[in-house]
């Protein structure tokens, strides 16, 4: 079948279109040539079509198990379930880069399709810059990471997708992640276009907002999926390890959050323009940095990177061009962005500026921790590892003022606000916060004192957010019908904020419970043995051997009771995959509101008795609140996205149309 060659050809075609799209519209904007500028839209659609065909061909090869393609032979197998044949398309380096450019083209096409109300010059520039990035990545794929390479003679069967990836959570993690941080490329393109034009205004901020929101929302889902996968797959209930690969996705999220909030000030008050443009550049640069860290092999060790630097050097070059070029452009054109209104330190703008500062510092600190080991290794100073102890000491203290400020910020008015009276209005909230802290302290009196304080902070954020909502709809101060009417008529962005901020509070509660109050018990158990963990009795019933579609499996069974009453039965598994001979552990989990009952089985140990196994049993408190909180945040993002003001199309600039010589300098 010629599909692979078709896919390869389509990709080259996309590159050709991309080169044209990168040059013609932006030159057209400079020369104010309407025809040249108008090329951007159709070109973007053509790119999207070409890349879609290319991706489709690769996916087809996976679905039909075409092992004459080296990529498919290395990452698939005929016994694999069809779902994993499909998701295997992106479960490898080359395929995932093709997914990257597909999503880049998707966003470009979306701007072309939905951005008809943008001034032609801005639209042309945005599409050109978007295409410039795409060209860089097409070259990367075609020159260093081609998924369409044939390997003849074709092997009879493939090497199977890595068993860790044969899992629904991890299978869908890359698409969401890419929809996230590739999405920041749009904000980036808008920022560069604005710098070139020399103008950032409220209209610009309104156009950028939906794209940034979408990217942020998807990235939150992607990170959440990855975390959730780690929790149920890796066997001890951990959900965040501050690993370079995790940080690679967290850094753009931090910058993206700051960007989202900073853009609000540009839109509403015509201020913080420099910050916002810079944050857009930083967010996308961090996406590229993340891609570099993950794809270059540099985290395994600097030496393995140096041994095969081709891919790493390419991405590094891309990163330096993008970041370096953008910062240079910012330095040159930044001063052109004149700020609109002034504001007092204590005001909503001031709070959002503080947010920018704190988030930027947090981003810098996480980046430092991530890159430090690479730096030390490259200098030959030995090998160090920077893990949770570092981040707990550095990141968490920075987040405390953020959480506090998040409760107060929405209550502040624009331009200037009186802090005293506002803080006094929180009386009822303070009571709830102290109550929550006391309950937390009472329930885990032996635990670290920081836990109740953390719970208090989470309670502060939650109740302060609800309080702000209640003030806005005049709850208890006006008739209920008035309040309800006000609630329904609140702008969706307002609801989005409420959900997102409250969601974060709930997630923080889950984080505290799952990390600090976790109970662990490791022992060897024979069938019939019982162990008590956190008030629950876990009785090991026994283990049975069996077979799955492409693996052998040993399934254990635990009966869990509390005070004699049956609560759940857990079925942990140990799988051994045929082809890659790799074992994986699947935990048996029962989710309760108070926490998760969690069990795994390990090695058989017949010296301790017939059918005895090493078992690990955990009680992970409040984990479901972590996932619930993240879900609320995502819902908040979606509600904001659904705001009618975005859907009616990008608002037109009020003052003048794109006038000829105005913006060119």
């Amino acid at each position, binding site marked *: 079948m010629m599909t692979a060659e078709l896919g390869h050809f389509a990709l080259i075609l996309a590159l050709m279109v991309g080169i044209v799209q990168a040059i013609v519209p932006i030159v057209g904007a400079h020369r104010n040539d309407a025809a040249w500028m108008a090329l951007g839209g159709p070109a973007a659609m053509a790119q999207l079509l070409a890349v879609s065909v290319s991706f489709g061909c690769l996916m087809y090869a996976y679905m039909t198990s075409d092992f004459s393609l080296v990529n498919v032979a*290395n990452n698939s197998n005929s016994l694999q379930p069809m779902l994993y044949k499909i998701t295997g398309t992106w*479960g*490898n*380096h080359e395929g*995932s880069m093709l997914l990257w450019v597909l999503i880049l083209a998707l966003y470009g096409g979306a701007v072309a399709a939905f951005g008809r109300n943008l001034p032609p010059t801005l639209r042309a520039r945005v599409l050109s810059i978007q295409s410039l990035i795409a060209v860089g990545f097409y070259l990367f794929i075609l020159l260093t990471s081609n998924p369409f390479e044939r390997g003849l003679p074709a092997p009879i069967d493939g090497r199977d997708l*890595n068993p*860790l*990836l044969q899992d629904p959570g991890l299978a869908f993690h890359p698409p969401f992640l890419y929809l996230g941080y590739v999405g920041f490329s749009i904000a980036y393109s808008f920022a560069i276009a604005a710098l070139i034009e020399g103008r950032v205004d409220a209209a610009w901020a309104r156009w950028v907002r939906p794209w940034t929101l979408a990217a942020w929302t998807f990235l939150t889902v992607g990170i959440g999926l990855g975390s959730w996968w*780690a929790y149920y*797959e*890796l*066997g001890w209930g*951990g959900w965040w*390890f501050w*690993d*370079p*690969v995790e940080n690679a996705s967290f850094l753009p999220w931090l910058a993206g959050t700051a960007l989202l909030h900073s853009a609000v000030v540009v839109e509403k008050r015509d201020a913080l323009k420099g910050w916002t443009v810079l944050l857009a550049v930083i967010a996308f640069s961090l996406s590229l940095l993340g891609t570099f*860290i*993950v794809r270059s092999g540099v*985290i*395994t*060790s600097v*030496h*393995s990177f140096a041994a095969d630097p081709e891919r790493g050097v390419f991405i590094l070059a891309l990163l330096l061009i993008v970041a370096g070029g953008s910062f240079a452009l910012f330095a040159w054109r930044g001063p052109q962005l004149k700020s609109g209104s*002034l504001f*007092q*330190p204590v005001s909503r703008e001031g709070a959002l*500026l503080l947010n920018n*500062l*704190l988030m930027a*510092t947090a981003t810098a*600190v996480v980046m430092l921790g991530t890159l*430090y080991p690479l730096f030390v290794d490259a200098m*030959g100073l*030995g*090998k*160090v*590892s*920077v*893990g949770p*102890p*570092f981040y*707990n*000491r*550095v990141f968490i203290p*920075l987040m405390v003022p953020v959480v506090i400020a998040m409760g107060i910020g929405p209550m502040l008015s624009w331009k200037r606000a009186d802090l005293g009276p506002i803080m006094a209005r929180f009386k009822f909230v303070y009571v709830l916060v102290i109550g929550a802290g006391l309950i937390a302290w009472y329930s885990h009196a032996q635990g670290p004192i920081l836990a109740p304080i953390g719970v208090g902070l989470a309670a502060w954020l939650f109740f302060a957010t609800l309080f702000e909502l209640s003030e806005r709809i005049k709850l208890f101060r006006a008739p209920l019908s008035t309040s309800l009417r006000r609630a329904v008529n609140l702008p969706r962005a307002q609801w989005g904020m409420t959900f997102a901020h409250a969601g974060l509070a709930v997630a923080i509660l889950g984080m505290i419970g799952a990390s600090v109050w976790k109970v662990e018990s*490791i022992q*060897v158990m024979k069938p019939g043995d019982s162990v008590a963990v956190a008030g629950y009795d876990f009785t090991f019933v026994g283990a049975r051997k069996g077979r799955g579609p492409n693996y052998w499996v040993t399934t254990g069974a635990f009966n869990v009771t509390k005070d004699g009453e049956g609560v759940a039965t857990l079925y942990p598994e140990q799988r051994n995959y045929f082809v890659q001979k*790799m*074992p*994986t*552990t699947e935990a048996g989990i029962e989710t309760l509101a108070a926490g998760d009952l969690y069990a*795994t089985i*390990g*090695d058989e*140990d017949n*010296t*301790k008795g017939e059918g005895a196994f*090493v078992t*690990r049993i955990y009680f992970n408190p409040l984990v479901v609140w972590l996932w619930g909180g993240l879900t609320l945040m995502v819902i908040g993002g979606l509600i904001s996205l659904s705001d009618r003001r975005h859907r009616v199309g990008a608002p037109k600039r009020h003052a003048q149309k794109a006038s000829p010589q105005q913006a060119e300098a």
Partner: protein
Amino acid sequence: MKRKHKRLTFVMIALLLLGVATALVLTALEDDITFFHSPTDVKTKDIGEDKRFRLGGLVEEGSVDKSAQPTVAFRVTDGAETVQVKFTGQLPDLFREGQGIIAEGKLASGIFIADEVLAKHDENYMPPEVADALKKSGQWQGDGDSDKETAK
């Protein structure tokens, strides 16, 4: 507030923030990073008993003692010296004698009490996320220990 004073306020806050962050980072870099040592390092250098570090090497043949399950005892060697290790928990599936491993923990009376053990996984190429995930699940690919003998 005059514009000049406002700007000064913002700058002061920013500097304060930067100062706090720097202090935190410097303290953390001193106390909270984990260094890597080979058995030779352990025997020849004086590594304190409350300093957390990573010990890397090969599992010495014939040294694995599972009589006190779930606590396992074994010795780690780099060809020159060996260190006794004790670990309570589930060993990674690829753990076996002669295999390269990295253990993370602290020394106590000359015995290394590990709370994490990663076994080296021999796979040619794998996506970094998977390598990362394998690392977390107790299997690890990298050339940390073999480099150590020459790099020092």
